[in-house]
């Protein structure tokens, strides 16, 4: 109960801060939309290749936009010194990680909600929105769980903008591939597809548990 209270309090603070500053979410949303527009014009989309190209474009937009937010998760507080003040409190470090993770999932989720209809219009691809939700949600949790952990690590370095993608991209490759393939499978029915959603869920479970445990060691100086 104490852990949940702490998670909620930190999350409430992050949401309130973001709603007032609007620094992160506006940038992320705009970036995702720009990527979708650029891909739409860059590729020669035809009926036969749309289903192959569109899921990749969608997840590239999500992943790149996510990195804009993930990079600021802890860096902004570290720069202002307020993260130290949070660490001074007798707060379970797991609560800090979970709150930051939930905040990231929420902010990325808002960007995805805005980007998905734009994607559907631009790429003109038929897909069942209901079936896409679990893929997007699980994919986002996977990206955010690894990203939140490494954003704490990168925040303590000078080259954080460079370091974060270098650390996170290799680790989330399985999640991104599985998410792209699972999204593609919604557009074109293919036989003998592996259980992509189960694969994403498995990666999420592994990354989430590891990150929750390791976060404590990453943030302590």
């Amino acid at each position: 109960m104490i852990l949940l209270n702490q998670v909620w309090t930190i999350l409430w603070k992050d949401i309130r801060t973001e709603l007032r500053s609007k620094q992160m979410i506006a940038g992320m949303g705009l970036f995702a939309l720009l990527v979708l527009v650029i891909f739409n014009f860059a590729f020669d989309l035809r009926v036969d290749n749309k289903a192959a190209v569109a899921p990749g474009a969608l997840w590239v937009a999500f992943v790149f936009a996510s990195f804009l937010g993930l990079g600021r998760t802890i860096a902004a507080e570290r720069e202002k010194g307020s993260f130290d003040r949070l660490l001074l409190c007798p707060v379970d470090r797991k609560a800090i990680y979970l709150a930051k993770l939930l905040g990231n999932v929420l902010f990325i989720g808002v960007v995805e909600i805005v980007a998905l209809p734009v994607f559907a219009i631009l790429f003109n691809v038929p897909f069942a929105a209901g079936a896409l939700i679990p893929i997007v949600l699980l994919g986002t949790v996977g990206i955010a769980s690894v990203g939140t952990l490494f954003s704490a690590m990168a925040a303590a370095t000078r080259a954080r903008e460079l370091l974060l993608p270098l650390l996170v991209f290799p680790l989330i490759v399985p999640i991104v591939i599985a998410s792209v393939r699972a999204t593609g499978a919604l557009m074109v029915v293919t036989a003998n597809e592996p259980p992509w959603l189960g694969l994403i869920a498995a990666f999420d479970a592994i990354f989430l548990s590891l990150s929750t445990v390791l976060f404590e060691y990453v943030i302590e100086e």
Partner: protein
Amino acid sequence: MSSKPYLEIHGLKKSFGLKPILRGIDLNLYAGERMALLGANGAGKTTLLRILAGLTRPTDGRILIDGLNLVQQTREIRRKVGFVAHQPYLYDELSALENLIFFARMYALAQPQARAIDLLQRVGLSKKGRERAGALSRGQAQRLALARALLHEPQLLLLDEPDTGLDQDGLALLAELLTEHHARGGTILFTTHDLEAALGRSDQIVMLNNGRVAYQQATASLEQERIHEVYQEVVR
């Protein structure tokens, strides 16, 4: 005075990479005592305070606060320690009141809002409660940082140049708050560059030079003229 020090520092060393910052500090501070830490920039004052606050891990040495080992029992110790840095480090987008409520909740205080309002009044910011912390003046922000450090009524108060940015009223308030804390039996360790402030607010003076204790003396037994000479020598 109890026979066991409230804060015990034994052979404390800290290096950043190959650069030694603290080269073996031994200090004792008894409950209810006030210690002023003086020294030139880079002498290791802030590093020492950050270690005692549990923000930085020591490279070597042993620190006990109220009998608890700082490295092994950091979480229990955090409830006993309040820390004020020379910068306020607030959440700029939150109001002054929200900042205090947030930290009161982090310390799991019973009535976070009531406690936050009390402290805002105590530091003279009750009219600024709804203003964003980022819009407060430097002195007001430092007052808010003082209020935050006192929220959970810590036994040990660590202050790193707490008078930075404070105007005359702010300085008087700081002196008042420290006196109150001391009167309640609280223990205080603060750094300053102001020798007069150190003499006026402490029971013990410690001067650091190049990561070592260069001078330590009870304020009551100091020769006023000699101390200025010593300070000039150490700080230079």
